[in-house]
């Protein structure tokens, strides 16, 4: 599980996730100088697209997923995004957020935190937010979410170098513990299930907390998985 300090592995696979129209494809273009199709309307990326580039000795692959409002499979492109995040191998998630609509965008971030993967938040359109008088404190947001948050602007390339630096750092360091906390009622039930699993000395690659959360969420793929065991 621990990948810290292992410098022999030089390939990093990053997956870009965000709600529709937050500038994911544009961000990839800014980072890697690729020429992905960008449009001023939602649903431009229906299938996953990839870009490659090198940075400080790392070979980096970025995967662009279709925009999704949450990790439910409501539409086909949302299903593409969800299936990839759950089933494919990757090192790190970059959650792209529209700084001008932080609250709505964070709903997806909450879903992503449940995945228990390394996540870096890219606060895109930060120049637009400045213009609209929206001030976001990256440090406080980082405190609350427990994951690094970096202001970027895909159009002016501001913050892109910093984002890359943080991506590499997160890759090298062990994963931070999830700060996702549910309401009191849910937390109580999570506690009960965790205790039960501890008593039974249940063996699983997932930690007990994630198992409890998945069970309470009535997560269908997870139920299928445990039934097969």
């Amino acid at each position, binding site marked *: 599980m621990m990948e810290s300090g292992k410098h022999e592995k030089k390939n990093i696979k990053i997956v870009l996730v965000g709600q529709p129209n937050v500038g994911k494809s544009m961000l990839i273009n800014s980072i890697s100088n690729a020429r992905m199709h960008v449009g001023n309307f939602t649903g431009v990326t229906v299938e996953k697209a990839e870009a490659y580039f090198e940075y400080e000795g790392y070979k980096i692959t970025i995967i662009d997923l279709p925009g999704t*409002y*949450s990790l*439910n499979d409501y539409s086909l492109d949302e299903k593409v995004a969800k299936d990839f995040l759950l089933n494919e191998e990757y090192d790190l998630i970059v959650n792209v957020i529209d700084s001008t*609509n932080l*609250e*709505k965008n964070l*709903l*997806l971030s909450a879903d992503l935190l449940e995945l228990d993967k390394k996540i870096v938040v890219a606060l895109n359109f930060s120049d637009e937010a400045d213009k609209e008088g929206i001030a976001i404190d990256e440090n406080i947001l980082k405190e609350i979410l427990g994951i690094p948050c970096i202001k970027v602007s895909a159009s002016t390339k501001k913050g892109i170098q910093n984002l890359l630096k943080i991506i590499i750092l997160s890759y090298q360091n062990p994963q931070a513990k999830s700060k996702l906390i549910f309401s009191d009622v849910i937390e109580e039930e999570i506690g009960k299930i965790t205790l039960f699993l501890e008593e039974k000395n249940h063996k699983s690659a997932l930690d007990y907390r994630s198992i409890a959360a998945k069970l309470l969420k009535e997560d269908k793929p997870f139920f299928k998985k445990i039934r097969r065991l």
Partner: protein
Amino acid sequence: MRLDELKKGQSAIITKISADQTLKDRLMSFGVLRGSKITISECAPAKKTIKILVNHTMLALRLEEAKSIEVSL
């Protein structure tokens, strides 16, 4: 009362959403949650569709969908 009973320009707090799970999840991903403040910003002719504002998100709802959302003024 239900969301479809509100008039244009009125605001209310969501108290209950009794939609099926799919719609519930969908609404949730836009921030339409219990406790959120909701404002009717436009009504289509014959009130078949309404435009609502939740936080900073603007959404269009079918009146049928609005009926599953309970609100209090």
